[in-house]
């Protein structure tokens, strides 16, 4: 009996430790009707980084965000400008966003806020950021609703 408990503990410890120590954990999935691509945080950090300094309803004053541009990420999977994207967050909340936004503006998948990684508690690990300070038309509440935090997947509708 005692041995069995010990065995269970060892096995579960192995499985629990696996995502941390072994394979890098996928935090973002981008899928089209035919393909699907997963990215770990390291994958995302190794992409060309874009910085955006902007204000929005959820931060105090002008804030520096950094991450790959959404355009770049979409291009990796061959998603075109006319697509409609469904962006889903960790809590299963989802919003539909036209892909043209990414081609018209420097929309980024921010992974750094003021130089630091974002935890889930602070809308991380990925927060979709629109450069609202650079384009006055983006301050419309329509775009505020597209600032999805805790982004976990992008799929073509």
């Amino acid at each position, binding site marked *: 009996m005692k041995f069995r408990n010990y065995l269970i503990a060892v096995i579960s410890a192995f499985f629990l430790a696996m995502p941390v120590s072994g394979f890098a954990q996928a935090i973002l999935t981008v899928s089209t009707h035919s393909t699907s691509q997963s990215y770990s945080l390291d994958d995302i950090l190794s992409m060309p980084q874009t910085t955006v300094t902007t204000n929005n309803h959820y931060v105090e004053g002008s804030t520096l965000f950094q991450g790959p541009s959404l355009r770049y990420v979409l291009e990796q999977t061959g998603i075109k400008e006319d697509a409609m994207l469904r962006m889903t967050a960790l809590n299963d909340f989802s919003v539909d966003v036209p892909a043209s936004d990414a081609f018209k503006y420097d929309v980024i998948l921010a992974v750094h806020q003021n130089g630091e990684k974002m935890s889930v508690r602070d809308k991380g690990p990925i927060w979709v950021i629109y450069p609202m300070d650079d384009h006055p038309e983006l301050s419309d509440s*329509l775009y505020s609703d597209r600032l999805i935090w805790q982004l976990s997947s992008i799929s073509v509708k």
Partner: protein
Amino acid sequence: MISFGKLIRGVLLTLFLAAAIFGMSTVHELNGKVRSIQPSGQSDPLWVASQLQFELLRLQNDLGEFALGYKTSESIGLRFDIAWSRINIIKTGKLPRTLKTLGVSDEVVTNLKETFVEIEPAIAGLSAVSLSDEERVRLVENILAQLDGYDQKIRAFLLNVAHAKTDSTVEASASLLSLSNALRFLGVTIFSLILTFTILLLLDLRRARNAETAMRQLAKEASSAAQMKINFMTVVSHELRTPLTSILGGLSLLKRRLAGDAEDEMALKLIDVASRNGDRLLALINDVLDAQALEEGKVTINPERADLNEIVASAVESCQPYAERFGVNYAIDSQDTGLIALTDESRVVQVLVNLISNATKFSSAGQTVEIRLKKRGQKARIEVVDHGMGIPHEQQKAIFSSFYQVNPGTVSAIKGSGLGLNISQRLIELLGGTIGFHSVEGEGTTFWIEIDLLPDGDD
């Protein structure tokens, strides 16, 4: 009346300006109001609060399932972080300000955050490897006990936000309504102002049109006065000419008969006076008939090759009786020969006779009237120069108009019809030439005409 209209216009303009300023300020206010309504969607406090409630319930639910062994401790950790992120969203950025504006206390959220800090170690403890089923259930029960009551409190918070939002919406819609009323009032005002302006404009237009009609009528009457004078004289002249011709014919026959009988010089002189005045009367009548014919465009001209030297000589000869009567001499000055023009000889003679007889009338006895003929480029210029009293400056403008007469003063006995110069001008224009004059009062007057010459090669 005019100052009253100006006053009304000023008042209307002021009203217009006031309406425009009021309209602009209203639109500005409306703009601000509409902007303040904007928070919606994800930044709507109601939505954010309900999301907190939802995530808290999900956390509690997952904890229960974890106790039963259905969920992993990682998923509990993720739920906990997500619920925490909801607290952070209410506590940062624009939302705290929005809640403050709505007058809703977020104390419950602050308390929840403190509780979260307290249960954080316990949540982390759930992933410990050596937990027995009983220990797991006990840990979960502890956590749930600490979270107990928050669902009710957050529901109350949600209700408060909903009420506050409804109140502010009602307030906003009331103020929007008042603004829209103001706009409606403004619209009516502007419409009525425009209407008034239009009416004023139409009245002005009507007045201007009436004035124009009156002016036109006056102008018509003025121009028809001269016409009527000519018409009247034409009728009278026609009636006069026939008997006058008989009288003149009779006089000339009588004179010829008396000429053989030199005894009665007195009778001969009387007949002379009668026939001279008869001639003058006939000339007047002819003038009137000429003027009428010119007016109606009935005068025709017959251009033929004519030597201007001959024309001048013939005109001067015709005027010789005048020269004798007034004791005036004529001097012809013509250096150029062979001045040939394509023109109507009799008309040019008529004009020259008129100019020369005028010059004669305005000269004193013993003076000389000069008639000069010279070539000027492709034109011939004929000047009739007198050394009489001249034409007063203020009368020079009107000299060519019908029935105009310069008072000859000392020689008032010789009066014309006042049509001579007018007829001359029209005839010269018909012939394609020009007529003009210059005059210095007290020194004399020069009338001149210019007529196109035929090119030399045509000889």
